[in-house]
Structures are given as structure tokens and as C-alpha cells.
């Protein structure tokens, strides 16, 4: 229900003008932020978003002048946390640190979420993961061409570790289509979570793993990367990109895009507060001391900005909605 009114507010673009035109009203209130700000992390403690939120929080609260409180609301593929966030008022005192892609599209496309992807506005998504096709050292598989050849001959000849209903699965199927591999014949071994999929890959329990590549950085000396699903090489992996293998027009979905966001309606309801938050995140993300501190923890701080971040999530949503059949349980 609350979405409806929020969307209503969004549509009323005049509200924005009214806000700017009424500085006296704003001056009457204490300057934002006048109380602690909650950061919703829709995952349990210890995951990437949790670590990112906790690592950046000390710097961000210095920039904002108010403490940040991390609120973990894990569960149901971030659906519970995203729903909770949407239920909080759009007054700038609740912000979110989440894997906007793929979880917002997944919530909307497969879990009947009570919100839309466009109800979220990402200020910056510094961490941009990508699906990587990987094999353990010593499996004898050395190149993606070998995988293609073997799967073309018999799609079930290699076991593939993968998460069900994931961007990785969409990428695998697009890859199969591009190379004339029989989708239905693939031997998928499903894991719930990237960590277990990577462990199974590194341990050669499965022949090939299809899972986010950044998580493999820690296991780099145990695995052989075969291909990254991106428009160019990533993170120094010695593996071709999907555009080199499947052609320049190769279809693929970007991996997890994690970072900081607010209610989309905040831009209309409190544009001044949005400015404060956005510029604080921007200045902190560009601060060399912060970049160094986060790099030590394998956390990204790249500044892409709201426009590029939201555009990329929209694109991911569009590709995923075209392949919604793959996302509905396998």
C-alpha cells in the first residue's frame, strides 16, 4: 500500500519544486541529519554487504556527523530486508547497503515482492561482480573451448556447480544457446550460496563451477579460470571474456552489483537530504585513505555514481525478466 502513495509522490514532480521554493520551512527544522541513521543490510552478519557497510560506516558517519547503525535483516534472498527497508519512512534516516542486482530483480520477478526495482535508488554500487566459469587445478580442463566441445558432444559429460534461480544460471543457458549446447541435457549440481559453490569447484567435486568471480580471488591459486561473463577481462584473471568467445554481441547478465541506496521517493520528498547523503558517499568513496583501508579488506570503493549504478541495475533487470522462466526453480 505504501508504495502506491510513494509512487504518487514521485509522479507529483511539483513537490520537488515546492520543496526548493520553501527554504524557510526547512530552516525551521534542525539541519539534517539530526539523529542517527540506520543502514539496513538485508543479509546476515559476515557477508559482503555486511562487511562493506561496517567497513565504510566509520568514515561515512564522520562525513555525515551522525552515527550509523547497521541493521541486519537477512533472509529469503534479501526479500525480507528489502521489504523492511521499503516499510521505513523515506526521510533519509534509513538507507540501505545491498546487492541491488541480482536480488531486487529476483525479488520482483520470482518472489512476488510488494515493491518495484524502481522504488530503490542506488547512489553508488562500487562492487560489480561477474559470473566466472572456473575449474579446479588438475581436472585436465584448460580452456573454455574444451568445455564447449565436450558439452556439444554430450551436454551431460561435465557436472556444473551452480546456484538455482541465479544470474549465473541465466548466463549458463545463454552460453549454451550461443554454442548449440543442449540446455536440457546439462548436468547441473545446485548449491545454495556462492561460498559452497566455490568450495565444490575448488575441491573438484564438480567439474566446472559457474559463480561470481570475485569470491574466487581468495582461492586464486587453487583454480583455473575459464571465462568471465563481462565485456572485458576482469581482476587480472587469465581468462577470455564472453564477448571474445561468443561474439561481440554475446548476451549475458552482469553479476552482483552491491552498494548504497535510498528510497527512490527520497529524491522528491527530501531532495536536500538526498544531496547530503549522496555527496557524503561520493566524498568518502573518493578519499584515498578510505580506498586504502577498504582495499585491505578486499572491499570495493569505486565511484560510479547514481546514474551509471541505476542504469546498470535496470539493464540487469531487463535481461533477467526476458529469461524469467530460468529463474523459477530448476
Amino acid at each position, binding site marked *: 500500500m505504501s508504495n502506491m502513495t510513494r509512487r504518487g509522490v514521485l509522479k507529483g514532480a511539483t513537490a520537488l519544486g515546492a520543496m526548493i521554493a520553501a527554504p524557510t520551512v526547512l530552516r525551521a527544522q534542525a539541519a539534517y541529519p539530526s539523529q542517527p541513521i540506520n543502514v539496513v543490510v538485508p543479509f546476515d552478519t559476515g557477508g559482503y554487504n555486511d562487511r562493506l557497510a561496517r567497513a565504510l560506516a566509520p568514515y561515512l558517519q564522520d562525513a555525515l556527523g551522525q552515527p550509523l547503525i547497521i541493521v541486519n535483516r537477512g533472509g*529469503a534472498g534479501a526479500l525480507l530486508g528489502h521489504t523492511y527497508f521499503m516499510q521505513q519512512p523515506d526521510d533519509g534516516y534509513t538507507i540501505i547497503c545491498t546487492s541491488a542486482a541480482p536480488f531486487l530483480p529476483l525479488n520482483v520477478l520470482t518472489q512476488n515482492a510488494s515493491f518495484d526495482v524502481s522504488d530503490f535508488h542506488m547512489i553508488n554500487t562500487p562492487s560489480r561482480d561477474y559470473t566466472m566459469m572456473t575449474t579446479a587445478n588438475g581436472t585436465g580442463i584448460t580452456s573454455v573451448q574444451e568445455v564447449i566441445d565436450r558439452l556439444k558432444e554430450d551436454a551431460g559429460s561435465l557436472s556444473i556447480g551452480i546456484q*538455482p534461480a541465479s544470474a549465473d544460471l541465466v548466463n549458463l543457458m545463454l552460453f549454451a544457446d550461443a554454442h548449440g549446447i543442449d540446455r536440457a541435457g546439462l548436468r547441473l549440481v*545446485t548449491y545454495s550460496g556462492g561460498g*559452497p559453490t566455490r568450495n565444490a569447484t575448488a575441491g573438484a567435486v564438480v567439474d566446472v563451477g559457474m559463480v561470481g568471480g570475485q569470491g574466487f580471488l581468495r*582461492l586464486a591459486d587453487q583454480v583455473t579460470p575459464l571465462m568471465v561473463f563481462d565485456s572485458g577481462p576482469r581482476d587480472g584473471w587469465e581468462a577470455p571474456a564472453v564477448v571474445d568467445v561468443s561474439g561481440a554481441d554475446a548476451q549475458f547478465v552482469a553479476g552482483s552489483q552491491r552498494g548504497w541506496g535510498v528510497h527512490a521517493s527520497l529524491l522528491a520528498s527530501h531532495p536536500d537530504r538526498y544531496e547530503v547523503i549522496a555527496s557524503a558517499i561520493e566524498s568518502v568513496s573518493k578519499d584515498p585513505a578510505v580506498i586504502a583501508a577498504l582495499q585491505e579488506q578486499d572491499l570495493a570503493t569505486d565511484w560510479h555514481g547514481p546514474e551509471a549504478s541505476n542504469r546498470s541495475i535496470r539493464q540487469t533487470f531487463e535481461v533477467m525478466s526476458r529469461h524469467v522462466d530460468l529463474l523459477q526453480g530448476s
Partner: protein
Amino acid sequence: MLDFDAVSSAFELLGSSASAWVYLLPGLLIGLVFGAMPGISITMAMAIFLPLTLYMDFLPAIIFLTAIYTGAGFGGSVPAVLMNIPGTSSALATTFDGYPMARAGRHNEALGVALASSVIGTLSSYILLLLLIVPVSAVVLKLGPLEMFAIAVWGMLLLGSLSGNSVARGLLAGAFGVLIGTIGMNTAGYVRGTMGVPWLLDGVPVIPAMMGLLAASQLLNLINTTYLIENEEDRGISFAAILAGAKTAIRYPLIMMRGAGIGVVIGSIPGVGSSISNLISYSETKRNAPDAETFGTGNPKGVIAAESANSSSEGGAMATMFALGIPGGGATAILLAAFAMHNVVGGPQFIANSKDIVYAIIFTNFAQAVCLMFVGLLFVYAAAYIVRVPLRFLIPSVLAVSTFGAYAISNSLSGPITLFVFSLIGWLMLRYGYPVAATVVGMLLGGLLEENLIRTLQISRGEFSYFLERPGALAIFALMLVSIGLTILNSNRRKRLERSSEIGS
């Protein structure tokens, strides 16, 4: 085995900043208190204090966090003994004999047994870690779904010993638990039994459900009793009795070593860990004990088996973390994050290049285990006063604390609601003579059983010959069969002896 250069530089590292050791005691205490609070997990305690370590140097940070880890590992067994509430899921088997001991007025002894077993379990697991870190790491990742399934089945054998008088009721209660454990989205992406409730998509929250089944149902049954221990003169708090308990534990080195071995091996498998190792250790000990029929009624050996296994899982989890850079569970994930903050990244390279740090951390844990013995003594001495609280105050307070804990886990009402629903189920089960613990075991193992069975079918495409390609799994199954076979032989021999002595008398 030991690299003595690295050992000496480890000592240098440890001696370099004496002030680092200041963090050991607070760490242990924080761990003990948080672990003893029902519902607060080890991971949660460590996550809360992780940001503090940002401002510390590497060594104090690691001493502080691993001290919390060690403290919380034991803290969970205090409410398990005194109130039948496992503070963490890894203390489940501690309740089986610890709580009956407490009710019989042997609470001091039970706490002493648990403490000594935990300390020795932790110590021996780190000694094993020192020797096994390389071979264990070579094997751990190679475990496939069939091996994991075999381990889960091994845990399920415990159902046999939890059944009490009626095996049929025990199995039914266990099957009920397994079914509850499979609620939610399974590993293949199918959603079952959530009744459209999004909070159930990740399954029934295990800790609130476990607290409800075990604690609340028990407490409701105590409503006509005035004290936890009926006999007034048995309600004493005695340091001597706690120490006597610790001595009891030392008298069973075999049980302890078996527990530590099981704990290290199971603890080193990512995603399995201490909540299963204590079950397997308990059932193995019970099956091999000559006085098996007294297990569950307050046999200290049951407490030794459970506590030595769950505390030694810490060493196993650390081995995997060091050797492979992989967190076996939440706690080691947080440790890895803390390492990363200080530019230390786990993995094979790390062990090869930074032996001194690995040794330093292992030695730190030796020191922690020794300190835990003393801090733990004071802690359990204070905690034992619970038996002097009249139940009309204790029951509502425990229920309130459990409800807070359930809320803390889920950060929403879903935790307390789960607690409430499962208290009712537990009370009904108790009333009609079904073993509640069997349901909890089923619930803990149900997910593991199901997901690995699914993966086995996916990877083998249903071909039976896959079994033959997995010698590891075959070995686990064979070990299990041998263990059961020996038990049957032994009990038959005992029965025959009893019968002949009856005839003789």
C-alpha cells in the same frame, strides 16, 4: 612436523607486545556471557565486536576475537546444563545428560565436567591442528555430496539412542524433525511447506525452535515444582564439587580423545561443524559404553562426549580457514574478515609464508584454554546460583530471556512466534511420550541430509555406480556399519552374561 624457526619467531611475535594479552580476559568473558545467553550465537558475539578490532593491532585483535570464540564455545553449555536450553546449537547433546544431572542435584559436578571437557577438547584440537593442518586441508574440499550425506546419516544414528522405551515413537519424532528441517527453499530452488510465509523461505529458524522444543516445554512441565532441584540440601554451590566434576572428566581420556578427534574432523568440513560433531560423539560414546542404558539419565560420560567434541570443532574450523582461506562457518568468516583488515589473507600461500603467525595463533589458543579453565570456574560458580532461584521467578525469567534471544536472532517477531509454536509442540510431545530431542536432531540434520541427497542424485544422474567412485563415502558407511555391528555383539554378550549370572544366582 614442527618448524622450530617458525616456533621461535612465533614466541617472539607473542612476546613483542605484552599489552596484547590484556584483551584475552575481556574476550573470554564476553564470549562466556554471550554464549550463555540463549539465542545469541558465537557469530553474533564476534560480529558485534569486530568493528572494535579495527582500532587494534593485528595480534591483540586476533587474541580478542579468538578469545570470544573460545569463551562462547563453552558459554553455550552453561544454560544447557542448568536449564536444558542449549545456548548455541552445538550444545544440544550436552543437555541430554547435563540437565538430568543438574536436576538430581549434581549441577556443580556437571558444570565441572563440561568445563574440563571443553578446556581439554580445545587444547587437544589445537594440538591436532598443529599436526594435521596440511593433510586435513588436502581432503576437506574433496568431500562430495555423498560423503556429506554419509556424515548426516551418521548423526541420525543418534535417534536410536534417544528413543527411550518406544523405538517407533523415537523414529516418528525424528522423521517429524527431518520434515521440519526441509521447510523452505531447497538447494534445487524449490519452495516447500512455507504456507506462503516469506519468513519461512530460509526454513524454520532452528535456534528459536530448538529453545521452544527443549526448554519451554520442559519449563511448562515444572510448573508444579518449587525449585529446579527438589531436595533442599542438594542445592548447594560448591567449588569442591565443581573441581570434583573436572576430575571426573579427566578420568575418561578415551572418551575425550574420541570427542576431540570427531570434533576436529567434522569441524573442519565447511558448513557442517560443531552442531553435528557433538551429536556424533555422543552417540558413538553411548553405543560403546558398558553402561549405555544410564545415558540420558545423568551420566557424566555423555557430557564429556558432547563437550569435548563441540569445543574441539573450533580447531577444525580454524584448520580449514588457515589452510584454504575458506570459512567453515560464521565465526571463521568473521575471523577471516578481521585477518583481511590487517592485510592477512588465508590460503595455502599463507601457511607456507606465515608459519609464525599460524603458530602464534595456535599458542594463543593454548593460553586461552588454560585461562578458560580459571575464568570458567568462576563463571560456572556464579551461574550455579540459578538452582537457588525459586522456579516461580526462574521460569518466567528464562522464558523472557529466550524470547529476547529469539527476537535477536531474527530481528523480527518471527523468532518469538517460532519459539511459542514450538513450545506448544514440545509440550504436547512430552505429554504424549514422544522424545523431543529426537525431533531437534532431525531438524538439525534434515536440511543437510536432503541437500546432499539431491546433489548426489544430480551429480550421479541416478547411476548407482557413482557409489563405487567415492571410496571416501564407502569408508564412512563401512565404519558406521562396523561400529553398529560391534555394539550389537557387545550388548548380546552382556545380555548372555547377565542371563547366565541370573541363572547362577
